[in-house]
C-alpha cells in the first residue's frame, strides 16, 4: 500500500487498513516462525531464500525508490557479504557469528562509501549505474582468480554456525534452527529499514529524489545524503548476502554478475517500487511463480517476463499499485 493511497482512502479507512494490515503481519510472522513444522524442507528453503531476496530487494529500493539513484551492480554488495561470511565460517575465523554478520554489513557499507565518495559527488543516473556494474564485474574477476574463495567453482560446504551465548550455545547447524535465526534477522533488518525510511533521514532521501536542486536550495547536503543512502543500501545488501551463505551452504560466481543484480530490480518492479513493501511482495510473487512452474522448465521465465510486461504497460507501480487501484475502485463503487 503506497503512502499516497493512505491519504486518498481517508482517515477512517486508513485506521481500519492499518489495523487489518498489522493483524495480517502478526499472523504472517507467527506462520513464518512455525513454518518448519508446517511445510517440507524444500519449501522451507525457498521461504528462507525469499526472506533474503526481500531484504536484498529492499536495499536496492532504498536507493531507487527513495533516493532516486539506480545501481545496476547491487549483486557486488551481496557477494561481499556472502563471500566474507562463507570464508569466515569455512576457514574458522575467530569471530562470533553475529560479529561476522556485522563486519560483512560494514564491509558492504565501506565499499559503498568508497564508490559514493568518488562517484556520487559528480555522477548519478546512467554513470552511477555503469560504475556499479563495473564494480560487480571486477569483483567477479577477483574472486574468479582467488583460490581461497573457490575461483570458478565457488566456495562450497560452508558450515552453519554455533553461537556461544556464554551460559549456553545456540546451535544453528540444523536447517530449522538456522531458518528461525534467519527469520528474526530479516525481520530486524526490515524493521530497521522501515525506521530509516520513516525517519527524518528517509524524508531527506525522498526530498532529494523529488528534486535534488530544490533540496540543495533549502540547505540539504545532497551529495552527503546520497552517500549515506548508498552506504545503508550497500551494507544491507551485504547483510542479505551474509545471511544467505550459511543457508545455501555454497557461494558461487552466479551471485556476482549483472544478471544477479537484476534480481532485486525485478522484485522491486514486480511488487511496486513506490511502496516500502513492494520489493517484499515482488520477491514473494517471483518465488511463487518459480515454485508453481517448477515442473515446467523455462515456463517461469516466460511467466515472469509476461507479468513484467503487463505491469510496465498497465501498472508501473507494480502488484501493490494494481491492488491499490482495485481497492480504490471498489471503495468508489461501494460509495456510489
Amino acid at each position, binding site marked *: 500500500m503506497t503512502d499516497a493511497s493512505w491519504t486518498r482512502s481517508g482517515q477512517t479507512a486508513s485506521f481500519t487498513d492499518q489495523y487489518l494490515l498489522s493483524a495480517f503481519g502478526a499472523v504472517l510472522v507467527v506462520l513464518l516462525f512455525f513454518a518448519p513444522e508446517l511445510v517440507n524442507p524444500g519449501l522451507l528453503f525457498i521461504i528462507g531464500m525469499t526472506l533474503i531476496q526481500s531484504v536484498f530487494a529492499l536495499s536496492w529500493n532504498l536507493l531507487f525508490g527513495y533516493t532516486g539513484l539506480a545501481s545496476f551492480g547491487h549483486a557486488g554488495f551481496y557477494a561481499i557479504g556472502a563471500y566474507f561470511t562463507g570464508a569466515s565460517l569455512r576457514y574458522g575465523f575467530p569471530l562470533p557469528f553475529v560479529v561476522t554478520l556485522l563486519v560483512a554489513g560494514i564491509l558492504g557499507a565501506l565499499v559503498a562509501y568508497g564508490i559514493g565518495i568518488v562517484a556520487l559527488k559528480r555522477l548519478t543516473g546512467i554513470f552511477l549505474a555503469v560504475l556499479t556494474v563495473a564494480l560487480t564485474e571486477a569483483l567477479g574477476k577477483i574472486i574468479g582468480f582467488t583460490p581461497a574463495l573457490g575461483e570458478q567453482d565457488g566456495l562450497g560446504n560452508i558450515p552453519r554456525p554455533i553461537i556461544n551465548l556464554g551460559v549456553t550455545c545456540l546451535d544453528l547447524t540444523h536447517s530449522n534452527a538456522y531458518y528461525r535465526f534467519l527469520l528474526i534477522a530479516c525481520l530486524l533488518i526490515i524493521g530497521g529499514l522501515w525506521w530509516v525510511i520513516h525517519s527524518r533521514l528517509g524524508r531527506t532521501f525522498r526530498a532529494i529524489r523529488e528534486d535534488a536542486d530544490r533540496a540543495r536550495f533549502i540547505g540539504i547536503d545532497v551529495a552527503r545524503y546520497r552517500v549515506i543512502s548508498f552506504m545503508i543500501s550497500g551494507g544491507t545488501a551485504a547483510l542479505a548476502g551474509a545471511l544467505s551463505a550459511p543457508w545455501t551452504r555454497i557461494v*558461487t560466481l552466479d551471485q556476482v554478475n549483472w544478471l544477479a543484480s537484476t534480481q532485486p530490480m525485478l522484485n522491486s518492479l514486480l511488487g511496486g517500487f513506490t511502496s516500502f513493501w513492494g520489493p517484499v511482495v515482488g520477491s514473494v510473487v517471483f518465488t511463487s511463480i518459480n515454485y508453481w512452474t*517448477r515442473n515446467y522448465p523455462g515456463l517461469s521465465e516466460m511467466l515472469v517476463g509476461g507479468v513484467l510486461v503487463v505491469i510496465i504497460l498497465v501498472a508501473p507501480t507494480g502488484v501493490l499499485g494494481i491492488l491499490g487501484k482495485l481497492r480504490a475502485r471498489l471503495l468508489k463503487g461501494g460509495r456510489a
Partner: protein
Amino acid sequence: MKRRTLLKGLAASASLSLGMRSTYLRAQSGPLRIGVSYALSGVGAPVGTQFMKGTEIAAMQVNRDGGLLGRQIELVVRDDKYNSAESVAVARELAGAGINLLIGGSQTVTALGLAPLAPELNAVVIIAGAAGMPVTHELFNRNIFRTVANNYTQYSSFGRSLIETHPQVKTWISIAPDGDFGRDSALFFGNAVKKYAPGKDATVLDTIFTQGTATDFRTQINALMSSRAEGLYIGVAGAAQISFFQQARGVGLYDKFRVIGEVGNGEVTGKAMGRNTYPNLWSISYWNNDLEPFKSNPLSQQLYKDYVESTGNKFPPALVMAGQRSAMALFEGVRKAKSSQTDAVIAAMEELTFDTPGGPCSFRKEDHQMIATSYYSQMGPSDTDPFYKILQMAQIDTSQMIEPATPGVKFDIKDLPQ
C-alpha cells in the same frame, strides 16, 4: 483410568497403527520414486537435457524389464536451472517428499551445491556430469557417487591419447579460458603429453589464455600462428569455440596444425562447422553407436534403438549415454542391495561393477569415483548430411590415469608423483 477410556485409547492406537502400516505397505508396493535434478533451462540446458534423456531411457528400460525390487521406477524431475542455490532447493524439496535416491549435478556448479547436502538429507546422490575435482576430494562424503571421470583423469587421458596416436607431433600448445577449469585442463593435458611422449621429447609451449565467452580470437590466433607448435588443445567450449574455428580457418590455422584436440563440444562443433570441420579434430566423447567398441555392444545397440524410438532422431548426442549410465549405476546399486534404503544402497554401490554401453564400470571404494573407460572421437568433414562424421574412437582405461584417492583433501597436482 476408566475402562471405557482405556478401551477408546486402545482402539485409537490400533487404528492408528493399522493406518500407518497400510501407508507403509502402500509405499513399499507403489512405484520407486527417484529424484532427478538436471539443468533443464538456462545456459546449462544443452548438457542437462541430454543427461535427462539418457536417464529417462534408463528408467524406461528397467520398467520394461519388470522394474526394480518388483516396483516400477517413477522419476520425479526438477530443473536446477544451472544454479547452485536452485539445486539445493530442489534436493531439499525432493528429500522432503520422502525421496532418498537422487540423480543430479549435470554440471560442477550445481554438484557443488548438491554434494554437501547428501548426508543431512540421508540420501544417495549420483553426481552425473560434474568433473570438478572438489566433488571427490574436499567435498567428499559417503553419500555421493560420481559417474563421470574427473577433470584430472579426463584431460590427462586426453593428452595421453593424442600423443600416443600422434607421436610425430613434437610441439604442442593450448588455448584455454583464463579460469580454474581452463588452466587446469590445459595443465593436465600438457603434463600428460610430456609424460607419455615416446622418448619424452615433446615440448609443451605456454598456454594462451582468453575469455571463456570471447567472440574475437584474432590476437590469440595470431599468437598460435606465430608459434612453432603443430599440435593444439582448445579448452574453449560452446559458441566461443565455433567462433574460434570460423576465424581460424580463414587465416590458415587448419594447414598449420597437424592435430587439434578440443574440450568436449563434439557434435555441437561438427554441426556448426559442417563441411568446414577441421579434418583431424579430436573430442572428449562418451558414445558413438556406429563405431567399435560400441558397435558390438548389445547394451549400446539397445540404447540407440530406444533413443531413436522415443525421439525419432537418428543421431543421438553422446551425452545421452552418460545420463543413462548414471541412472543405471543407481538402479544396479538398488538391485544389488535388494533395498532402497540409503545405507544399504551405499554399501552395495561401493562394491558394484555393472555393464554399460561403454563397457564395465565400478566405483573406487575410498572416494566413490567411477572407474570406467574414457573415449575420444576423431571427427572430420563429410560430403553427406550432417556434413561431418566421426571417423574413429580412441580409448583409455581410466584406472591407469586416475589420481590416488584422497577423500576430504583438496586435490593438488603438485602432490602427485611426476
